[in-house]
């Protein structure tokens, strides 16, 4: 018996083309998410915790996001090296807060890095289904950074200000970890929107 010729359903073909069109339209989403993830990582250069003295310019002592992450990854909270920022000082007065802040900074950095890699893969048109994974990673980074931010500000209630600053009312504890947190949130939203579009398009084929 002769084999039937291979005929493709025209309607199926149309759906497939529409799906491919949607996948292509997600590339700008991926590019935007990659840029946002890069910005979030760059914002790790800002102080995740610092003592601000309104009588002098800048901050008295600080620990940047990358320094905090390094402390967590290396387990070194008492090192005076420049790469570790002033973590040794904060750790002396609020060790528990420093451990949590640093652990969250490290977790956020790793999540954002992984999200960035995924977004770059997505931006070159590969594996469009990974938008949801990138969204999850950025959501995790956002949550970790919020915890970091909260624990930084909570150091106000430790002996840090009464002892390090002699109770000087001009001194306060500040944190800019909220900035990369907001960037991670924005990146998550972009990836989430893309993931929804992809899911809807996949349902229709």
């Amino acid at each position, binding site marked *: 018996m002769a084999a039937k010729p291979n005929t493709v359903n025209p309607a199926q073909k149309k759906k497939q083309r529409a799906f491919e069109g949607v996948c292509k339209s997600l590339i700008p989403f991926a590019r935007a998410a990659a840029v946002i993830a890069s910005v979030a990582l760059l914002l790790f250069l800002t102080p995740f915790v610092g003592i601000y003295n309104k009588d002098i310019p800048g901050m008295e*002592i600080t620990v940047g996001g990358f320094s905090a992450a390094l402390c967590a990854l290396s387990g070194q909270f008492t090192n005076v090296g420049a790469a570790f920022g002033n973590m040794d000082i904060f750790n002396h007065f609020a060790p528990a807060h420093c451990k949590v802040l640093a652990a969250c900074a490290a977790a956020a950095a790793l999540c954002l890095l992984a999200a960035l890699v995924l977004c770059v893969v997505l931006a070159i048109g590969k594996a469009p289904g990974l938008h949801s994974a990138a969204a999850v990673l950025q959501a995790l980074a956002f949550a970790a950074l919020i915890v970091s931010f909260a624990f930084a500000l909570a150091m106000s209630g430790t002996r840090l200000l009464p002892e390090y600053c*002699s109770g000087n009312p001009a001194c306060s504890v500040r944190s800019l970890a909220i900035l990369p947190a907001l960037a991670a949130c924005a990146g998550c939203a972009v990836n989430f929107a893309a993931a929804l579009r992809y899911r809807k398009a996949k349902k229709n084929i």
Partner: protein
Amino acid sequence: MKKRLLCLLLLCGLLAGCGTRDYVLTESNFFLIMTNMQFYPQQYLGSEIELDCFTYALEDVHGQRYICGVRKSSAEYGCTCGKDTIIGFLLQYDGQLPEPRNQSTDDGDKTWLHLRGRLAGEQKQDIEIHAYLPDGSQDPENTETISFLSFQVDDWSPIEDASGLQYYVTK
């Protein structure tokens, strides 16, 4: 063979990092390392430490006299909070150290020494002294407690020209 060589190299690297480290306090790192030492003296036990400082005499409320090797800094480890203090060590030496000079003046014209030695222990010694009134005189009514680490001096030499040294150290 390559794997064994790599393991051997790693082991050498690890062993090299296991020994105690020596510290030389310079003008660029004096405050950072000194502060770190005050917070975490256990990290510096067994290490040889070199530093330049001036001698300063402290007398406690019982009349006991101590010679310290210090520099001036802002209070509470560097916060710019309008209060100054001295940062350094209680000196232990089997011999005579030069007497402090111009102790009541707020300038660098002091008895400067280059010291080499090590921390005598990780516990700080509390010294209760009479507080000072704003005019610089002692307040017989009030006392304050200063805590110092002890430094065992192995070797010292006088510094004749201290013009390159910071009397007041900051971050």
